[in-house]
């Protein structure tokens, strides 16, 4: 069981690393939101699931309640994270930020 949890944590950490790196590496505001929105949510879901599984192991009432609370956090972030990203994008569009486009590419 510990092995599975460790593997999940490593997997989630890779996602977090990707998200953080992507926020630095991508060229413009709109494309930066892709790692920020997806990889952070994915990493959070995976790591928190690992924690929930770890917490539930001595199967008592208190640990089950705690684990359910962790699942509630996952659920909450899962609903609200895309919404937050969407609102930031909306603010960007309304402020008139131009999306970065590839020079000489196919374009829009």
């Amino acid at each position, binding site marked *: 069981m510990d092995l599975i949890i460790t593997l999940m944590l490593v997997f989630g950490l890779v996602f977090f690393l*990707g*998200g953080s*790196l*992507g926020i630095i590496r*991508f060229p413009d505001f709109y*494309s930066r939101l892709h790692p920020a929105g997806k*990889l952070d949510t994915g990493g959070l879901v995976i790591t928190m699931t690992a924690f929930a599984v770890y917490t539930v192991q001595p199967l008592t009432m208190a640990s089950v309640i705690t684990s359910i609370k962790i699942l509630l956090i996952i659920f909450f972030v899962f609903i609200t994270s895309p919404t937050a990203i969407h609102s930031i994008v*909306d603010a960007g569009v309304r402020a008139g930020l131009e999306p970065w486009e590839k020079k000489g590419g196919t374009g*829009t």
Partner: protein
Amino acid sequence: MNRFDKDSSKSAKRNRRLDPGAFVLTLCITSVFWLFFSGRFDLFHLLLGAVSCMMVSVVTHRLLFPKGVRARLGLTWFRVAGYMPWLFKQILQANLHVLYLTFHPSMMRLINPKTIEFKSRLTSDVARTTLANSITLTPGTITVYSDVLGVFVVHCIDDRSGQDLPGEMEERIGRVFDE
């Protein structure tokens, strides 16, 4: 003060009326959440919970169910549960795809951001919101804008990612919300 300066409050009055079905359902949902939060089942805490849930339900049942409760609401939850595994698979794919792009040394050559536009046939608020959030979570796409008529503007990170929109996702959500 003429009429121009006063807000008409007809809708406010209408919204303050208690809707029994929505109220009871909200009370049930909030009570379940209270039990999860609290984790104490003695009489005193249960009483506190009952009072709190009652207050919250009175205030917010209009927010959860603005159009009242429809008969087939129970089925929708099960269908949402059926939609989730597919969504998780898509999200995993999306994450791996963006991960690949992020770690690729010549990332700037691979990506090609652009916006595409499509019209969705979904009509209800919840269905459209689910679609928009699902788009934001799945491969290389973010919902930029969605308007009343069902036009979605989507920002894609590269050529491949935005191709099959709306496609299967819209179909599945349509089935979930019965449209």
